[in-house]
C-alpha cells in the first residue's frame, strides 16, 4: 500500500532520483571531522525552529522586550527549553562553523574546484556572526545593552566612515528603540534570507562537486 503510494507519487514527482543523488551519492572514505558541516546544518535548523517559536511571544520594543523574555522563560510551557535551545544553539553555531572552517583549511578542501564553496562558507561564517551580534541585544538586559554599546562603538572607530557606520548600526547617535527594532529586523528577516540562500548554494556545490578525500602524504 505504502509502496504503491510511493510509486504513484514518484511517477509524478520524480523524487526518488533526487533522493538517491542527495543521500545515496558516493563519497570518498573520510573521517568524523567531515560531519562538522552536517552538525552545523542541524544546529542551524534548531535555531530556525526555536527562533520562529520565540517570535510568538517576544516583543522587540524597549518597554516589552525584557519582560516578554522573562515571561517566555518563567511562564510559557517549555518556554525555558525553547529559549535555552536557541541561546545555547547560538554559541554552538559559532563554535561549529569555526572548527568546520579549520577542518577545511587543514585538509586543503578549499582548493580547486571548491573555491566557490569556500567563498560561500566565508559569507556563511559572517552571517552567523551577524546573527550572534544582533541576537545578543534582543533580551534587552544590562549585558545586551552594554555589549551592543561597546560593539557598535568598535565599528565606530573606523577612520572617516566610522561615525556613519555607528549611526547606521544604531539608527541614530544613541542606542534606542530604533536600534532594537533594526537589530530584530536584521535578526529575523535580513540574516535568515541571506543564510538560506547561502546554505542552498553551499549544499548544492557540496553535492554537485562532491567532497574532497582526505589528503595523502606527499600530495
Amino acid at each position, binding site marked *: 500500500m505504502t509502496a504503491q503510494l510511493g510509486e504513484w507519487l514518484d511517477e509524478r514527482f520524480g523524487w526518488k532520483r533526487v533522493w538517491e543523488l542527495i543521500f545515496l551519492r558516493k563519497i570518498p572514505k573520510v573521517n568524523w571531522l567531515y560531519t562538522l558541516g552536517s552538525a552545523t546544518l542541524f544546529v542551524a535548523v*534548531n535555531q530556525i*525552529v526555536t527562533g520562529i*517559536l520565540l517570535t*510568538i*511571544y517576544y516583543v522587540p520594543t524597549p518597554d*516589552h522586550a525584557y*519582560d*516578554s523574555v*522573562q*515571561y517566555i522563560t518563567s*511562564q*510559557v*510551557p*517549555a*518556554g525555558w*527549553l*525553547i529559549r535555552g535551545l536557541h541561546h545555547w544553539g547560538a554559541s554552538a553555531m559559532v563554535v561549529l562553523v569555526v572548527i568546520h572552517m579549520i577542518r577545511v583549511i587543514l585538509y586543503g578542501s578549499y582548493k580547486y574546484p571548491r573555491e566557490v564553496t569556500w567563498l560561500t562558507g566565508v559569507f556563511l561564517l559572517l552571517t552567523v556572526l551577524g546573527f550572534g551580534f544582533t541576537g545578543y541585544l534582543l533580551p534587552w538586559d544590562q549585558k545586551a545593552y552594554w555589549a551592543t554599546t561597546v560593539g557598535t562603538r568598535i565599528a565606530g572607530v573606523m577612520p572617516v566612515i566610522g561615525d556613519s557606520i555607528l549611526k547606521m548600526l544604531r539608527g541614530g547617535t544613541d542606542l534606542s528603540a530604533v536600534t532594537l527594532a533594526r537589530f530584530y529586523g536584521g535578526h529575523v528577516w535580513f540574516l535568515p534570507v541571506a543564510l538560506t540562500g547561502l546554505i542552498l548554494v553551499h549544499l548544492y556545490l557540496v553535492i554537485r562537486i562532491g567532497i574532497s578525500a582526505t589528503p595523502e602524504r606527499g600530495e
Partner: protein
Amino acid sequence: MALEPRMGRRDFLSLATWAIGGLIAAAYAIPGVAYLIGPALQKAAAQNWISLGLKTKVPIGTPTLFQATIQKQTGWIVNQDEISVYVLTEDGRDYIAMSNVCTHLGCRVRWVDDQGEFFCPCHNGIYDRQGNVISGPPPRSLDRYQVQVQGDELQILGG
C-alpha cells in the same frame, strides 16, 4: 552454510537513522506544541471580592449601574480594567449583580428606564430587569456575579 541474517547492516543503519530522526523530531514537536498552545492551558486567574459601593444607592426594583476597577493580567502586562455592573434588588435584602456585557457578541447593554428593560444597540437584544432574554439574538441571560454585603457595602466576586 552460514545463516542468512534477517536484517542486513545497511537496512539496520537505515532504520536506526529514521528512528533516531523521528525521536529528535518528537523531542522538538512536543515542547513546541505545548509552547504554542500554552495560553489555552492556563487556569483562570484567582478571584477576589471587589467593592462596588453602598447598597443604599440601589432603589428597589431598578437595576443600578456601578463601576469598578479590576486588575487584569495579559501576558506580562498588568492592566487596570473598568468593569460595569448592574445591581438589582427586589426587597432590599437580596441583591443580584449582572454584567453589562451582552451574551450575544459582547457589546455593552444599557438599562432603558422607560421600557423597563435592558437594550443592546448592536443587534437589538432585549433583556428584562433580571437579565433574562426577552427578544433578539442573545443565547442566554446576562452573566451574574456572586454578591455579598459587608455592612453597607456591596461586593462582587471577580478578577
